[in-house]
Structures are given as structure tokens and as C-alpha cells.
């Protein structure tokens, strides 16, 4: 151990370690070196991804705060501003899934609180190995338990998200949490410290040894020795988080705060250096004043990742009032320092200065690396001859409905309080959740999506597809997409074609976002999701928010009345990289962004004109699964006719093509078709009615009773976990 230089033990490269004395003009103290190692980790500095992220559209008429703050903020009209952000907690969840997932929720909630917003909704995007693996069942069930425990206890509804299972996530599961909040009358709070002489107040939980080194040790290296890293995972205390939420709301509304920042990765080091660097001021902190749970060394206090802590800048004359509000909520609040002239972050312990350096060196001046961009070979089209055509298509259909990737996610979302706050208009299980904006006639719609199998084969197309699927999900509930947040989960960008896939995925996402006129307002990057034997699929998760001007105008995916006409909007799907084919390979047709955007616009306009009885995105499992899902939700069957010409299973289960299923009253079909421009393909499929989902493909008829579909769909996930 002692043979390895300290900087390498901390995860710094030799070049980075050599750069530090150059920037400082002297050797760093040990606490300073520890601080550099954390702040210059990929997790805190985005040193491998920063240049690529510049490709995203980030501006727009609605953007009040773009990337770079704790969360993005968007104007949704009616004088209401909404903060949103998604963040990963992958590595901690792979080590200790319950606390890892729980603290992931806690962290993203504090990002929203730090903007001065009140959290109103959570979503989770999850990836695990196949549930046939005992390890994956453990990681999955404990992550769900951790998310539920935290979200349920803090009273923020978990309204949506998605999960899928693939062997590639066996050793590196993904837990991404998204939070959305509504700004209060106090407006946006920012992290920039201001006003020399102002007090710096640490409030919330006490500081302990949990999570020390989390950002560098866990989040910025591969996970081969994860078993030994358990002490690096933070411990959750949702009760204190709820008190923090209530307390911060009171503080934000009373105008007591000059700046607010949460303590996440790298703890006080990150919070203080970012506040100082953003404000162009210095901070002077007395570590002896930090309330501790146990005896800690100065460096440990500086980097502890103890949860449920916030840092605020407060006017001296408001200090007493601010601390009184914290006390009312039974929270510790201590003035640990003050804002100073200059630009240096100074930390004292026992009267001695242990840290004294320009904050921007930590916050802004990490080295930036270009990732190698080695293209992967193009995929080879799936040979349908390798997939035997099933003799009983109805049985294959039912089997597909029971697969964990397609089956009902009720087992998950019934463990989450998705109603608290009494604003949930569309609950989990549909295309997107719809949440009323309190005190307004408006509502927002929320979804997370990612086309990771597509990204593996064709990352640019997959990036486009991930964004377009999110937009389709919003359009299907009648919400116009207005803002996005992203979480880029990738393996080690320094190896193989990962850097290229990262760059291509971002480029594809940016193309689709630009075409939709949807800016990215916040995001997160999680790299190194791989072990010696396996690396994850490229998983750029898109969290997207849509807007409904009338909360009561949302559309559901349930079929409504017998006799309603069923139309299919969009192009044909293929079996390459589909759930049905269950093989990772293939070659996918180009994703035509402008055609897919035109289809989305058509469904949106039809929803806005009140023409839609139901709408549903056609995704995993293809047309047959989408029809069955709408039938199950509505408790009524459907008869649909599809053109033959390809294999029946490809017609039924093929994916892609930017498709949506819509139903209308018979008398409204002409109006709908009138809205469709030449770039959109609209096909008449059939009518709602009966008690079975009947598909006629040429002369062949496949029928699945709604109750049989439901039995399979509801059985799938519990059975896989039994």
C-alpha cells in the first residue's frame, strides 16, 4: 500500500498530480490533494464528456436556467417555473442497492430543492441483468425497495420511469433518478456565493464518515472490487430530507437566502468550491464548527458524503432568523464560515490553515480529455431464417407479454407512492405520467426513455430514437415536449469504441432534440459502467417534460368505446434488436427524424383538437403488444387488419418506425386525416370492440382474449422474481 503514491491511491493520474503544483505554485497539502482527486474525477468534472456535451441544444424561449446549475429551470406559462434534472447513482447501487438507490433519490431531490423549488414528482430509469440471475434479482428488488423507501418517506410521488433487463447490466446495474419541482414565489435560487461578509451556513444532518471518497472511488473507476467498497456508499435518512424540504421551502419563500447548494458527491469540497467559483468570491471555513457524528480528520470533513446536508449563503442580519427556521424543523444549522474577497477557498482546523487555494482550480480547471473515437463495425442485418416462425402466434404473443421487459410493471410502481400530493392525473403504466401544476389549470407530462439496444448497433440512430420515443410518449398523453434532461450511462470511454458511441449518441440525440425544438436544461454523465467481463449497453437516458395547457385534456392509452376507429401512425417496424428476436445483433433502418417529428406533431395536434379517444406509443414488442396493452387498459378488445407481405411475426412484433396507435370516434377520422401532412403515413387498422385482440394479417387471423393477455402481462414480473 505505501509503495503506491498517494495521488494514485486517490485516483489521480501522474500527469494530473504533476499539474497540481504547477497551478498552485507549491506542493498541495494532503487535504488539498484529496480535494483535487475528487473534484477532478469524471463524476465531478465531466473531464471526458464536457467537449461532447456542447453539441446539445440548451437554449430556448422557455429556458430560465440551462445546464451548469443544480438543475435546469423552464417557464411553463401561467407564471409557473419548473425545475428538472436526472442523475445517476449506478455504482453505489451496484455495491449496496438499497442505500445506493435511496441516496440517489435523496441527491436528486436536493438538487431540485437547491433551486428554490418544491419537488412534485420523481421518475426512475433502471437497468439490471436478466432476472434469471440471483444477483440481478437481488440488485433489482433491493433498488426498488430503496427507491420506494426514500420516495415514500419524503412524500414526493414516484410517477413514472422505465426498467429493462439485459445480461449486459449483470455486473453494472443502472439507477437513474429524475426529479421535477415547482418554483415558489421566491423565484430561482442559485449556487453562486455572493457578498463578502455574508455567512456560510451548513444545515441538515451531521457529518460522518459515510461516503468518503464515493465520487472518485465508486463513480470513476470500474467495479471489479466493488465488494470491498461498501463503506463508500452513503446512508440515507429520508425523515431528515423531508424536514430539509419543508425547511428550505420556508427559507426560499421568506427570501432569507443569498445562495443555496446541496452537498452531494465530494461533500463540502464540491459544494463550497462550486459556490465560490460561480460567485467569483472566496470562502473561509472553520472545520472545527462543522457538527460531527464522530471524530473526523480535516480532510474527511471536507470530503464526507453524509447525506441530507445543504450549504447556504445568508446575510448577517438574517442569520438568526434563518437558524431559527432550521431549529423549528429540528435541523442542525451552523455558521461555519463566511464569504470573503478574492477567489480562494480557505479551510482552517485547530487554528491552522489546512486548505488555501483558488476555488476555480477545483471547480473549473480539471484537465479535459478528448475521448478516442474508434467506430465500431456496422451491424449485420438479422437473418430471419435463424428465428423459427412460431406455429402458434397467439401463444408467442402471450409469452412476449409475460417477458419482464414487456410485462406490467405493477410490481414496481405499486411499491411507490405515486399519488402523494394529490396531483397525479395519469398514473404509472401508461405512456407518460401527467401531473397537475398546483394552483394552475396546467399540467406537465413526464417520461424517461432510452433505446439502448439500438444505441449498441447504431449509436447515432439510437440517440435519435431515444429522444423521439420520449417525445412520442408525451404526445400520446397530449403533451407538447418543452424540455429535456439526460443521463449518459456508458462504459469506460477510454476503451474500444465507447468514446465513439458516446459522441455518436450525443450527436443523434442533439439532432432529434433540435428538430423537436426541445432544449436540454440539465444532465449527468456516468462512465466506467463495466467490469473485467462485461460492459453495459450504451444507455443515454432521456428524461423529457411536456406541457398540457389544460390539465383535464390529457389522453390515455386505454381503448374507450366499441366502434372507435383504430389508426396506425408511422412506418413499419423490423425485428432487428427487438424484444421478440431476443438477440442483440442486427442492422437498423435509418431513423428519419423529420418524418417521426411530423408524426408526433400530427398526434399532438389531434390531441389539442380533442379528437383522440386514446393514443399509445408502439415500442417494445411492436404492434401486437401495443394493441394488447390498450385493450387490457380499456377492458375491451379490438379487431385490426394489417397488410401481409412480410412474415407474420415481423408484422406483429417488429419495432421502430416511429409508430403510434390512436383511436377516434368514427366521425372524426376525416378531420384527423386532414391534419396529416404528406410526410406522415396513417393507416386504418380496425375498430375497438369484443373481448379479444384480433389481428388479421391477410388471410391469417390471430386472436388473443383480453383476459388471457392480462393474465400473461400481470404474471410476467412476479413470476420472474419468484
Amino acid at each position: 500500500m505505501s509503495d503506491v503514491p498517494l495521488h494514485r491511491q486517490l485516483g489521480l493520474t501522474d500527469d494530473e498530480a504533476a499539474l497540481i503544483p504547477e497551478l498552485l505554485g507549491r506542493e498541495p497539502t494532503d487535504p488539498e490533494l484529496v480535494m483535487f482527486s475528487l473534484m477532478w474525477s469524471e463524476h465531478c468534472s465531466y473531464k471526458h464528456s464536457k467537449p461532447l456535451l456542447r453539441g446539445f441544444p440548451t437554449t430556448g424561449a422557455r429556458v430560465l436556467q440551462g445546464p451548469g446549475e443544480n438543475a435546469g429551470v423552464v417557464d411553463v406559462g401561467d407564471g409557473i417555473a419548473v425545475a428538472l434534472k436526472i442523475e445517476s447513482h449506478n455504482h453505489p447501487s451496484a455495491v449496496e442497492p438499497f442505500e445506493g438507490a435511496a441516496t440517489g433519490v435523496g441527491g436528486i431531490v436536493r438538487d431540485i430543492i437547491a433551486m428554490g423549488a418544491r419537488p412534485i414528482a420523481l421518475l426512475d430509469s433502471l437497468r439490471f441483468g436478466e432476472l434469471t440471475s440471483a444477483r440481478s434479482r437481488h440488485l433489482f428488488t433491493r433498488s426498488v425497495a430503496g427507491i420506494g423507501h426514500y420516495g415514500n418517506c419524503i412524500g414526493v410521488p414516484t410517477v413514472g420511469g422505465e426498467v429493462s433487463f439485459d445480461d449486459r447490466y449483470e455486473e453494472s446495474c443502472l439507477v437513474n433518478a429524475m426529479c421535477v419541482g415547482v418554483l415558489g414565489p421566491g423565484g430561482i435560487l442559485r449556487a453562486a456565493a455572493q457578498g463578502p461578509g455574508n455567512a456560510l451556513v451548513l444545515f441538515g444532518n451531521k457529518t460522518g464518515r459515510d461516503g468518503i471518497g464515493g465520487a472518485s472511488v465508486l463513480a470513476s473507476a470500474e467495479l471489479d472490487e466493488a465488494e470491498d467498497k461498501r463503506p463508500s456508499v452513503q446512508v440515507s435518512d429520508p425523515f431528515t430530507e423531508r424536514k430539509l424540504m419543508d425547511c428550505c421551502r420556508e427559507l426560499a419563500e421568506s427570501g432569507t437566502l443569498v445562495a443555496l447548494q446541496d452537498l452531494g458527491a465530494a461533500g463540502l469540497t464540491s459544494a463550497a468550491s462550486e459556490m465560490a467559483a460561480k460567485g467569483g468570491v472566496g470562502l473561509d471555513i472553520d472545520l472545527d464548527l462543522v457538527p460531527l457524528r464522530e471524530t473526523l480528520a480535516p480532510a474527511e470533513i471536507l470530503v464526507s458524503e453524509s447525506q441530507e446536508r445543504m450549504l447556504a449563503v445568508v446575510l448577517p442580519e438574517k442569520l438568526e432568523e434563518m437558524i431559527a427556521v432550521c431549529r423549528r424543523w429540528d435541523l442542525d444549522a451552523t455558521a461555519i464560515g463566511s464569504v470573503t474577497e478574492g477567489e480562494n477557498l480557505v479551510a482552517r482546523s485547530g487554528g491552522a490553515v489546512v486548505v488555501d487555494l483558488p476555488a476555480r482550480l477545483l471547480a473549473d480547471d480539471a484537465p479535459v480529455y478528448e475521448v478516442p473515437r474508434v467506430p465500431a463495425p456496422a451491424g449485420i442485418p438479422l437473418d430471419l431464417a435463424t428465428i423459427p416462425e412460431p406455429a402458434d402466434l397467439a401463444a408467442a404473443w402471450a409469452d412476449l407479454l409475460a417477458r419482464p421487459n414487456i410485462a406490467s410493471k405493477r410490481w414496481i410502481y405499486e411499491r411507490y407512492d405515486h399519488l402523494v400530493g394529490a396531483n397525479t392525473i395519469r398514473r404509472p403504466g401508461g405512456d407518460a405520467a401527467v401531473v397537475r401544476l398546483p394552483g394552475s389549470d396546467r399540467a406537465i407530462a413526464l417520461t424517461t426513455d432510452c433505446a439502448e439496444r439500438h444505441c449498441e448497433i447504431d449509436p447515432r440512430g439510437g440517440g435519435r430514437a431515444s429522444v423521439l420515443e420520449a417525445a412520442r410518449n408525451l404526445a400520446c398523453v397530449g403533451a407538447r415536449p418543452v424540455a429535456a434532461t439526460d443521463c449518459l450511462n456508458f462504459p469506460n470511454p477510454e476503451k474500444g469504441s465507447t468514446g465513439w458511441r458516446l459522441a455518436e449518441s450525443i450527436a443523434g440525440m442533439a439532432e432529434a432534440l433540435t428538430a423537436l425544438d426541445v432544449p436540454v436544461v440539465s444532465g449527468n454523465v456516468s462512465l466506467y459502467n463495466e467490469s473485467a467481463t462485461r460492459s453495459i449497453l450504451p444507455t443515454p437516458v432521456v428524461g423529457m417534460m411536456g406541457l398540457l395547457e389544460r390539465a383535464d385534456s390529457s389522453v390515455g392509452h386505454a381503448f374507450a368505446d366499441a366502434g372507435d376507429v383504430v389508426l396506425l401512425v408511422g412506418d413499419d417496424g423490423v425485428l432487428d434488436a427487438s424484444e421478440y428476436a431476443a438477440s442483440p445483433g442486427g442492422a437498423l433502418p435509418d431513423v428519419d427524424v423529420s418524418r417521426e417529428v411530423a408524426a408526433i406533431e400530427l398526434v399532438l395536434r389531434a390531441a389539442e383538437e380533442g379528437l383522440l379517444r386514446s393514443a399509445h406509443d408502439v415500442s417494445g414488442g411492436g404492434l401486437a403488444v401495443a394493441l394488447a396493452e390498450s385493450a387490457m387498459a380499456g377492458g375491451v378488445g379490438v379487431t385490426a387488419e394489417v397488410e401481409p407481405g412480410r412474415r407474420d411475426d415481423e408484422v406483429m412484433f417488429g419495432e421502430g418506425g416511429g409508430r403510434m396507435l390512436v383511436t377516434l370516434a368514427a366521425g372524426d377520422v376525416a378531420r384527423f386525416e386532414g391534419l396529416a401532412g404528406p410526410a406522415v403515413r396513417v393507416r386504418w387498422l380496425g375498430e375497438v370492440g369484443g373481448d379479444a385482440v384480433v389481428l388479421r394479417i391477410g388471410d391469417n387471423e390471430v386472436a388473443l382474449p383480453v383476459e388471457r393477455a392480462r393474465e400473461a402481462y400481470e404474471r410476467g414480473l412476479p413470476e420472474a422474481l419468484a
Partner: protein
Amino acid sequence: MSTTVAVLRFPGTLDHDSAVRAVEGLGATAVEAWHADAELPAGTDAVLLPGGFSYGDHLRCGAIASRAPVMAAVKRHADAGGRVVGICNGFQVLCEAGLLPGALRRNATLSFVCRQMELEVADDDTPWTSGLETGAVISIPIKNNEGAWYGDPDAARVVLRYRDNLLGSTDAVAGVANAAGNVMGLMPHPEEACDALLGSTDGQLVLAGLIA
């Protein structure tokens, strides 16, 4: 004068704001009652204990809250015949405080459950079921981890029963009242079923009991 309903707030109370909205939707006035205060707000006509995880559910659900200073005032209000309703964690608090019979145990599912439930009116002679007849069915969501009522149904005044006893309550109990009927507790959340936009307005039928 409209009825004034004191809505309690403990540390960890989650449903304060939605309870206030539901109360105001009934035409009543809502005022906050703080856990550390020894008295209910002046002019309080009725009391609502909303759901949540008071004091982090440490020790036992509702145990610490039942001993909070404000609860002595709630007891005096109940003893004087004043209306009191406890929802979810509020029900647990009322049982821990001895204002209602029985106790709430871990769900038979061994998990948190959030689901819309059908409830059958078991006693239409209470303020909380005054617009309903015994046997009528209403739809209100549950969301809890420790929601299985345990007790002697013959010694309790059962007001609401689950049609599907998913949580494993004794006698499928969803809500009980004290003998006089002025104090009622239920695990389902009527405050989240007071708006057609959210799927049900049946919660208003229960909460109407707050309005004398």
C-alpha cells in the same frame, strides 16, 4: 361561518397540503396545527391528522406523534365531542393515542402498497358516512406499509371495509370510529379522492364528516 378544520403538522407529515386543499374544497377553512403547540388554533371546530411518516416512523408508526404536545389538545377536543379524523399515519397516531381501538400492523403483502381500492360502507350511522348507505361502495386509494388493522371488530365501530382484503386487516377493516362516532380513522386517503381529475370524488363523502 364556515367550519374551521385544524390540520395537524408533525415533522414528517406529508399530506398536509393535499388535506388542506380537500378541506377547502368542502367549503371549510383549514388552519395549521403545529405538533409542538399545547393548544389547537383558536376557533377549531374539527381536527384532521393527515398521513405521512411522523417523526420518521421511528419506534412504531405514530408512537412518537401520539405523545406530541398538540395531542393532549386533540384528546380534549375529542372528549368534548369534537370531530376528529385520522388518515393513514393519522389513523396510526389516533390508535397509539388511545382515541381509537386496535393497532396497525405490517401489510400481509410485506410491502408498501399504492392502489385504488373499493371500500364498502359498514356503518352508515356515523358523520363520516352520512350521505351513504350501509353496503354502498366507494373508491379511494391506499398507500401504506403498515396498514393492516388488528383488533376486535366487535369492540370497534367498523365504518369501512375493503372489498379485497389485500393488506390482511382483521375483518377487512379499512376504517373504524370510536363508540360515539365523532373520532374516525382510516388507512385509505380520502383527501386524494376529492377531484374528478384525479379519478374519484368519493373522498369528499368521508371528509364531509368534518363539517358539522
